[in-house]
């Protein structure tokens, strides 16, 4: 008797699993109703009539930020929140260009080493104090102070004496930053650093509020204590649950900040975030689950946003260990055997671009030197790969046996499996896989004892090819390849001190060419950012650094909301015509008028802001030429990427 129930229960399980029919449309998505058409007012801002009545944004932030102390922060999650809370000397436009932040304009000396910043006089801290040059001096010194123990202080290294101050050899006041007067700040650099302006919107260079840091010490970044100068203030922080920001009414551009409240959630499971998004509880996800491109494409074509990211995914060779020591043929063979189109089509799937170089595309004016074989067909490449493989002394009877090491993660696993499989299919290589958790993996890579072929990737802190090329410098902390080439090192040195942009680009091109000829790594693809965004959320743009400021965003009304408002208005009009004034509705009308008048005020303020930017535009030209791309920290691709 019992067994029938056993079978019955198994059937129950089966049907429970089977019930998620892939064909079944996700019912909740229907309720994410379409937004109304976006209409801009005369000031270039969205017209108030199309904005949703409730401007609250729910953003998935991938994981809990490690800290909201801008000088200790590292990692993408902290950076996203800090961009909303603080404003550095420079900021970024929605499309990712460097624009004035707390500094309204700046001059750069002829030798490119002295920057003079003129601060906004209307910039205030969230408690009403003015943001002064002294605040920046204090903050940069705090950031460089050994006692602060910032682990991202290397961003400050271009500053004069920064290395000595960091190691405690020189006192803090020797750091290359001085306040000329209350609103003028001067920063002196060691070398001309063309991307320096971009570094200034990295959180390590953000200002912190002196008196509250002194008063609260290490707990100054708690809600209630934190005084910020950005568009938002920290309202509430439940660890690993949510962080709530509210609009900073003292922000100099507060009139143009539309979203009044932002919630950041640390969803570590992408599938949870996806489900929350589908249930309408998120407007912005951090990423999307790896394997579900087709499904998302089918069910959420408008919500799925994919755009190039400034990062490369590649595999490294350990050149200090056989079989790769002095074995260019083998390295080339392994690289050519990989069908990158197949890998991006079938494995990564989200429109990542096949890559044959180190530096990803997306930097203005810079084009990487492609190796010759990049333009061949895969058949030709495979044939050449087999020839080189044989030349290196391997064949069917004596196949190459290697290990591919990678850090735990869905995407890395898939990629390693696919690479092993392609090598086997094309060359007959016997590759085994080995995955390790992130910290162990990093350590083993660095020690160069166990690794042979290992997964690597780089997402740059700032939009400059140098941050990629630097990785292969002899003695660089992340040169886990054991690559060392004197020509390469000397070219890199020239790049570092060159300040004429066109010559610098030429040099970087040459440097990368040297590297690619040595093939100490296998480029595979360039990263994309992939997320779901509520179509009602507008005002942001995709950019290669993936920096998005909530202050630029706004939520549109849904068509449904607009329709019901319209209906209400008609009803009111009719009732008014009939002379029957319902008091409640009258009040509602008045409310609407009030709203309009505020927006007029914001228009006028905006136009003064516009003049200010126009004024500094001339001054900024040089700067713009040299460095203009946004520079910011994006964390390492952590275990999850």
């Amino acid at each position, binding site marked *: *008797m*019992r*067994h029938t129930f*056993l079978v019955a*229960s*198994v059937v129950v*399980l*089966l049907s429970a*699993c*089977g019930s*998620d*029919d*892939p064909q079944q449309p*996700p019912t909740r998505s229907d309720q994410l109703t379409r937004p109304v058409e976006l209409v801009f007012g005369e000031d270039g801002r969205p017209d108030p009539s199309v904005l949703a009545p409730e401007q609250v944004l729910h953003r998935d932030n991938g994981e809990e930020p490690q800290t909201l102390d801008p000088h200790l922060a590292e990692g993408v999650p902290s950076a996203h929140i800090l961009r909303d809370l603080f404003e550095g000397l420079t900021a970024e436009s929605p499309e990712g260009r460097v624009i004035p932040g707390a500094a309204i304009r700046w001059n750069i000396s002829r030798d490119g080493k002295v920057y003079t910043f003129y601060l906004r006089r209307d910039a205030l801290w969230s408690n009403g104090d003015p943001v002064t040059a002294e605040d920046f001096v204090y903050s940069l010194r705090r950031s460089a102070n050994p006692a602060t123990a910032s682990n991202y202080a290397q961003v400050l290294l271009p500053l004069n004496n920064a290395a000595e101050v960091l190691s405690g050899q020189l006192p803090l006041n020797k750091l290359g930053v001085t306040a000329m007067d209350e609103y003028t700040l001067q920063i002196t650099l060691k070398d001309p650093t063309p991307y320096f302006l971009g570094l200034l919107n990295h959180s390590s260079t953000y200002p912190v509020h002196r008196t509250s840091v002194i008063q609260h010490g290490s707990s100054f970044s708690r809600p209630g204590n934190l005084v910020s100068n950005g568009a938002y203030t920290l309202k509430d922080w439940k660890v690993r649950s949510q962080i709530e920001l509210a609009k900073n009414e003292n922000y100099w551009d507060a009139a143009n900040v539309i979203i009044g409240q932002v919630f950041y959630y640390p969803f570590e499971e*992408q*599938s949870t975030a996806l489900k929350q998004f589908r249930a309408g509880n998120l407007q912005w996800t951090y990423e999307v*689950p*790896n*394997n*579900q491109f*087709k*499904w*998302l494409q089918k069910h959420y074509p408008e919500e799925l946003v994919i755009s190039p990211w400034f990062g490369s995914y590649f595999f490294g060779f350990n050149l200090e260990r056989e079989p790769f020591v002095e074995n260019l043929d083998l390295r080339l063979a392994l690289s050519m055997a990989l069908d990158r189109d*197949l890998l991006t089509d*079938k*494995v990564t799937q989200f429109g990542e671009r096949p890559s044959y170089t180190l530096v990803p595309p997306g930097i203005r004016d810079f084009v990487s030197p492609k190796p010759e074989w990049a333009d061949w067909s895969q058949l030709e490449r495979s044939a050449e790969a087999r020839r080189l493989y044989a030349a290196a002394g391997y064949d069917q009877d004596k196949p190459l046996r290697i290990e591919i090491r990678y850090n*735990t993660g*869905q995407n890395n*696993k*898939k990629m*390693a*499996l*696919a690479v*092993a*499989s392609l090598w086997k299919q094309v060359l007959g290589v016997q590759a085994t*896989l*080995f*995955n*390790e*958790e992130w910290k*162990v993996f990093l350590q083993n890579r660095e020690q160069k004892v166990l690794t042979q072929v290992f997964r690597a990737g780089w997402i740059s802190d700032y939009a400059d090819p140098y941050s990629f090329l630097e990785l292969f410098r002899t003695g660089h902390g992340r040169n886990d390849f054991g690559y060392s080439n004197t020509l390469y090192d000397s070219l890199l040195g020239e790049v570092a001190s060159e300040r004429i942009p066109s010559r610098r680009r030429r040099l970087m091109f040459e440097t990368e060419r040297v590297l690619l000829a040595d093939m100490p790594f296998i480029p595979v693809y360039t990263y994309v950012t992939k997320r779901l965004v509520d179509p009602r959320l507008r005002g942001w743009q995709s950019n290669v650094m993936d920096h998005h400021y909530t202050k630029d965003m706004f939520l549109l009304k849904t068509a449904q909301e607009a329709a019901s408002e319209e209906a209400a208005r008609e009803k009111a009009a009719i009732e008014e015509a009939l002379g029957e004034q319902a008091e409640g509705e009258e009040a509602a009308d008045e409310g609407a008028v009030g709203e309009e008048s505020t927006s007029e005020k914001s228009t006028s303020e905006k136009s003064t802001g516009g003049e200010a930017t126009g004024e500094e535009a001339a001054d900024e030209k040089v700067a713009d030429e040299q460095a203009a791309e946004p520079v910011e920290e994006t964390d390492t691709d952590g275990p999850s990427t």
Partner: protein
Amino acid sequence: MTKQAEKPIIDPFEAALGVSDVKGRSPWEHAWHRLLKNRAAIYSAYIMAGMLVLVMLGPLVVSWESDFTDWDYTSAAPSLESGHWFGTDAVGRDILVRTLEGGRISLLVGLVATIVSLVIGVTYGAVAGYYGGNTDRIMMRIVDIIYALPFMFFVILLMVVFGRHIVLIFVAIGAVNWLDMARIVRGQTLSLKNMEFIEAARACGVPPWGIIRRHIIPNLLGIVIVYVTLTIPQVILVESFLSFLGLGVQEPMSSWGALVSDGAQDMESAPWTLIAPALFLTVTLYCFNYIGDGLRDALDPKDRL
């Protein structure tokens, strides 16, 4: 216990005559008969036997290799034409063959880790119970202490410290799972050691270790068997937890737990990646639990664990 006591001592004379009308049954025979009456357990045993055959021989029969990536069919739904009857995963590997091979690992982990815990637990419990006194007190005190450790945490820590080698998974799970066994065995030993046949052995000068090995442990067999069948599904479950947390076996090896946790990620876009391994895993756990239940009822009708 009562059954054993009641068991008539067969008259040697009668036995010699071959008079079998009062033929006594050994406790094992009793147990066997009771077990046969338990249909759920018997059917479970059949299903399990089938599962074992499938898992051992299946991968040899299925035409795909478990690490072969079929680029023409990535994340493909089950279909007869493609030859992937259970569909494929995100890199085009055949789910059926992966499920079968995953089963090998899961069952192996279940079995080996259980044996590890068995060896430690039985030895420890028997020694503590047999010697009694202060030895017992101290040894059991240690068990109490270890009991208080949040054991899942320690398995995670072990995996973090030593990396995720499959042998380590056996050891880690086995090493934290022996406590129950030690306690049960100790209890049984305590009651056994004062029985006549042990006294007799002792009187004959058999050394303590010999007594434990020759007399005590064989008498624990019943309870040990029950315990083993009930521990195996637990261990398989623990392994699947670890896999879910990303601390399981290395690719391209797999286990049901790992497959299920992969599948659960894509349960809506590719439900077939979840269904097959989940079904195999659940059926196995289900059967083991029923078999364990049946054995317990049969071998140990009075004492419940």
